């Protein structure tokens, strides 16, 4: 069986036509004065989903989150949560909790008081609060730090306190605003997996806002890629990466090489694309690009082979010369300047310690790729 990208878990309510969305943004617009932060946006998130809103700063993703939390009201449109219209419900009555980017830990309260804060507001009996707080401390592995104040903790520990505080009330939805933004790279990678485990363990619906695509790809079941207040594509990480819907998405997520051209010939699902300077590219499963349409062929660097000679079996091969080489340890990235001047980025996994066909700066080189290695984009 073939699959697009690797499969993580068999959870795909979005493919089930009978499934009811848990959170539903229905034609939501949010304006701040003249500025439109969110523009006629519709989006469905399903129960127990780990959903990521990915976009550059100012794309409206945080506004979307804040509208869900109740800190902003939509200018028009509706937001439904579990069948309930959220309009007019203040933040302190919404069954959602948020983990803030700055963590927003109360500096004058100890770790356990911070975690207990929301439960106290609920009027939960003290014995139960203590039990829940202990449970939360165990969950985030902070039992020895219960009595400490936030300023006595490291960045990673503070992040976990913020997390424990926001899940302590067992909200219907947990909103995470750049949850790992303040952590260093190594800690961030560890915490990504911790967050995923936590979500599985608690069975909550997570909506995370991030500008870090790696973070979104690692954690989320589905990603919504946003730009200028609109959703460009909603799909699983693998679909977003391997089958981007547009040039914007292809460019935004990961590295990509883009060849602009025209569809010269179409037979079945395969097309032949002619580039500006006559380069020919054969693509299988090319979607619905019609003959003579202006299209872009997008291919990821790791799907391109670099060699000193043209591989005999190659369907698509273009000639150029090595312009730059970056050796990253696990892989080597080549920048190859094609004869028509276009720069191509190719990444080769360093699967062996000894390289058979070494290339160096200014060497003549061929780049080659399979006809199903890239996608044809019409938008």
């Amino acid at each position: 069986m073939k699959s697009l990208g690797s499969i993580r878990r068999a959870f795909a309510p979005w493919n089930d036509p009978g499934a009811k969305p848990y959170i539903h943004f229905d034609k939501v617009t949010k304006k701040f004065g003249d500025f439109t932060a969110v523009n006629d946006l519709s989006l469905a998130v399903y129960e127990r989903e780990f959903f990521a809103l990915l976009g550059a700063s100012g794309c409206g993703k945080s506004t979307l989150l804040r509208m869900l939390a109740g800190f902003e009201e939509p200018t028009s449109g509706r937001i439904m949560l579990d069948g309930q219209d959220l309009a007019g419900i203040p933040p302190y009555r919404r069954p959602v909790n948020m983990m803030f980017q700055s963590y927003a830990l109360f500096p004058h309260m100890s770790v356990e008081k911070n975690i207990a804060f929301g439960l106290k507001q609920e009027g939960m009996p003290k014995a139960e609060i203590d039990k829940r707080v202990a449970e939360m401390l165990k969950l985030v592995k902070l039992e020895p730090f219960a009595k400490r104040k936030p300023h006595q903790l490291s960045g990673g520990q503070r992040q976990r306190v913020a997390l424990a505080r926001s899940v302590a009330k067992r909200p219907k939805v947990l909103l995470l605003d750049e949850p790992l933004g303040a952590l260093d790279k190594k800690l961030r990678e560890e915490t990504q997996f911790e967050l995923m485990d936590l979500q599985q363990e608690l069975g909550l619906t997570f909506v995370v806002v991030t500008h870090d695509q790696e973070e979104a790809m690692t954690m989320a079941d589905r990603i919504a890629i946003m730009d200028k207040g609109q959703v460009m594509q909603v799909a699983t990480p693998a679909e977003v990466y391997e089958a981007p819907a547009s040039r914007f998405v292809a460019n935004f997520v990961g590295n990509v090489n883009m060849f602009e051209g025209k569809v010269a010939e179409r037979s079945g699902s395969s097309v032949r694309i002619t580039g500006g300077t006559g380069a020919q590219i054969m693509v299988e499963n090319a979607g619905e690009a019609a003959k003579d349409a202006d299209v872009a062929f997008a291919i990821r660097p790791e799907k391109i082979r670099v060699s000193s000679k043209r591989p005999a079996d190659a369907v698509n091969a273009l000639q150029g010369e090595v312009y730059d080489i970056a050796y990253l340890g696990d892989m080597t990235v080549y920048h190859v300047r094609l004869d028509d001047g276009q720069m191509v980025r190719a990444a080769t996994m360093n699967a062996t310690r000894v390289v058979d066909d070494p290339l160096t700066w200014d060497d003549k080189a061929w780049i080659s790729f399979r006809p199903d290695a890239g996608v044809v984009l019409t938008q």
Partner: protein
Amino acid sequence: MTNVALPAADTATAAQKPLPARLAAAFVSRLVIIVPYVWLLFFFLIPFLIVFKISLSTTAIAMPPYAPVLGFGDGISGFIDGLKQLSFDNYVWLTQDALYFNAYITSVIVAGISTFLTLLIGYPIAYGMARAPASLRPTLLMMVILPFWTSFLIRVYAWIGILKPEGLLNQLLLGIGVIQEPLIITNTYTAIFIGIVYSYLPFMVLPLYSSLEKMDHSLIEAAQDLGCQPIAAFWKITFPLSIPGVVAGCLLVFIPAVGEFVIPDLLGSSRTLMIGKTLWTEFFTNRDWPVSSAVAIILLLVLIVPIVFFQNAQARAQEAGR
């Protein structure tokens, strides 16, 4: 391998710098700390000692009006004779006349009530300023400081014009029919409270503003997100976090208010007994420098002891829960 040893050799030479050079370097780094201490020595400690010495003298019809005048005109033995004449009689006198004790108590109470009123009025102002759009804040700040550009005396005088029976306030209230008889405000404690609150409001607002302004608004959002209504969020988050500003503002108002002389003199009645006025009377009317110096020294102790105690407590609290 030899290269590796080089940096170690470098540090060795650094440690073996000649002693004078190291002393000079240490001196320069200390100089920064020495400057404020020298300032305090010359403009606080030495004047304090002079006043303290006068408080131990006796009055004399002379110039200056006290004896002994310590000096070396009669040699060392004359100086020692002078020292022998000093006594704590003036302090004993302060305890024997209830006037002084009452004046201290009244001053502390008046200053305490005024400080509380200033906090009550200043907090909402500071809060509003801190929540105002960032572009508006410098203007608001300017408006708080603006009254300082007019003479303090003139501003207090102006209040007489406003508060007196035929003054602006009474005319306004009579005009709109709220009252039938003019209110008697001048020459009462109410007038003193109004004067102190008005004059010292900026000293309350500024530290409050600075502690409220730097507070992260997402803390309030977090509290609301966790189910806290806005008013409860204020008392559970905003207010506790602004306590350093509250303390600083209260001290800045309370300390000068205790020794305040101009406001009770102009706005209060002649019967108003406050320590600043007592001190003034002793000094200028009775020309009793030694007693007025003793009054001043006691006033200083009355103020300093609780403040030092309070600041220590606060420093410890801050150490524990920043």
